[in-house]
């Protein structure tokens, strides 16, 4: 990868770090406000926040300030060190996800050769943090939530990765930039104007990826680890103040990152039809296009969240092992055959 604007490594890293520190909380705030607060309210015939800022848009910032003011409580029986580390692990997992997300030809924090592999590996770290939180809280509800998260991992992680495999086979690369390039330079039966977004050829993969991502993000049909009505919040029952805020931010930021991954792998990423793949202007326009696509994907994620009731843990296992995994395996086989034949 060439240096951005010819800067020294340290300067480039500092700029990237600054941008990431602005982008990630902003992304979490945006998704939280647009979907968690406003869209959910409208879907329930409510207004949502209206008073803080224009149309209530600063509500989440006010909430964050409120959380920061709250007392930081440790349960007496808690394993204090692990208890404190858990939300940081969860948040770190979602921060690390942002490292590989490409938003333009050069606008990427680090263009790893095994980008998608890295993303999948790092995203499952959050379950470790959840398990730590559940175990260290010394609370049976929290423990149940943590164990449910760990059990859920067995169900969704495999279809998630198998769904990605189809894309990787078709794009010939694990590098996210190369996946975008494969879509940009692809053709649909000789018609190359809009490239070949993999949602067309990998539609089953897209469905499986979205369903598994829903489980990974513990969004509602698969929110058994949180399960407010039975576990009163699951792994984060005992958390207050800014540690709870970290969990909340990680949840929404990971939703954003996964929407971005889906965008990169299935919707053509940051590339705009009609532009050269390496056109420098795409470093500016790319993030905008990317954001629009991410919002569409996130809309679907939250739409599903606000519509369906919660499944049981065993129903998710049954669904994942009996439907999603065979389907994704078949998808890989068919993709491989086409790859070899064509």
């Amino acid at each position, binding site marked *: 990868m060439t240096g951005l604007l010819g800067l020294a490594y340290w300067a480039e890293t500092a700029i990237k770090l600054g941008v990431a520190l602005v982008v990630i909380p902003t992304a979490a705030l945006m998704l939280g406000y647009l979907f968690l607060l406003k869209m959910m309210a*409208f*879907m329930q*015939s409510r*207004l949502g926040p*209206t008073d803080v800022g224009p149309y209530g848009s600063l509500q989440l910032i006010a909430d964050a300030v409120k959380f920061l003011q709250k007392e930081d409580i440790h349960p007496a029986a808690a394993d204090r060190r692990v208890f404190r580390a858990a939300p940081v692990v969860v948040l770190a997992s979602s921060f690390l996800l942002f490292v590989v997300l490409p938003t333009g030809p050069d606008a990427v924090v680090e263009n790893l050769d095994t980008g998608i592999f890295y993303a999948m590996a790092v995203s499952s770290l959050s379950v470790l943090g959840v398990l730590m939180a559940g175990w260290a809280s010394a609370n049976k509800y929290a423990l149940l939530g943590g164990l449910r998260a760990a059990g859920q991992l067995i169900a969704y992680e495999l279809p998630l990765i198998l769904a990605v495999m189809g894309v990787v086979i078709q794009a010939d690369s694990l590098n996210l930039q190369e996946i975008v390039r494969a879509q940009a330079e692809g053709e649909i039966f000789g018609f190359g104007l809009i490239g070949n977004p993999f949602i067309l050829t990998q539609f089953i993969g897209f469905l499986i990826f979205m369903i598994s991502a829903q489980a990974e993000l513990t969004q509602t049909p698969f929110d058994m680890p949180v399960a407010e009505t039975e576990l009163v919040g699951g792994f984060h029952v005992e958390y207050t103040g800014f540690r709870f805020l970290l969990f909340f931010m990680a949840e929404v930021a990971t939703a954003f990152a996964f929407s971005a991954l889906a965008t990169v792998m299935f919707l053509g990423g940051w590339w705009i039809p009609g532009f050269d793949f390496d056109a420098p202007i795409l470093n500016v326009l790319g993030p905008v296009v990317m954001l629009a696509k991410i919002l569409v994907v996130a809309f679907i994620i939250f*739409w599903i969240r606000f519509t369906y009731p919660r499944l049981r843990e065993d129903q998710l296992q049954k669904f994942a092992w009996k439907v999603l995994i065979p389907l994704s395996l078949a998808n890989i086989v068919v993709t491989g055959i086409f790859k070899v034949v064509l």
Partner: protein
Amino acid sequence: MPQFPGLLKGLGVTARTAARTLFPKRGMRTLIPAPQQGSVTVQYPHEKEAPPDRARGVIALHEENCTACMLCSRSCPDWCIYIEGHKVKAPPRRAGGAVRSVNVVDRFDIDYALCMYCGICVEVCPFDALFWSPEYEYSEPHIADLLHDRIRLSEWMETVPAFEDYEPGSEQKVRQVPDFGPDDFAPARKLEADGARELASESDGARELASGAGS
């Protein structure tokens, strides 16, 4: 296996609700978002919700009817009703009758910091002295001020609405809201003001009346 048509239908329901909330206007102005009209939200401090007549907002005391029998206080799950009373002599109801002794309430407090609005006190009162009022705005900066004394509880009486019957034939069960007319029975406090002689000590009076009410 999930039922796919049903799943899609569910997505349609939430999407339609969101659309109806955000774009309630019809005709030319369909695309102007107006969630204020489309939603069912009542923006409370700015506009007030009209609670139904039977809403359990606050409990009002019709003091003239109260005999300090303590039934409400004893049946309260939270022990949030405090009653003290004493007996006074009252003139006979008709000429030639015996001198009656009636109870006067000295203290009747409800601690709304403790009250859980179960309404058992209203149910058990055999003398129609307690009523539900739909009034709900009585929050206080200090928790001690949530203890409403008999003066405050009597003031709530003005907000008790006249109830409609539940349904035809239910008239027997409906408690009538007392009118404050002159023929209201036993204005005990007025008697006391006229200088009627006090009888037993306050605690004795309360206990006797409680047993009297039970028989």
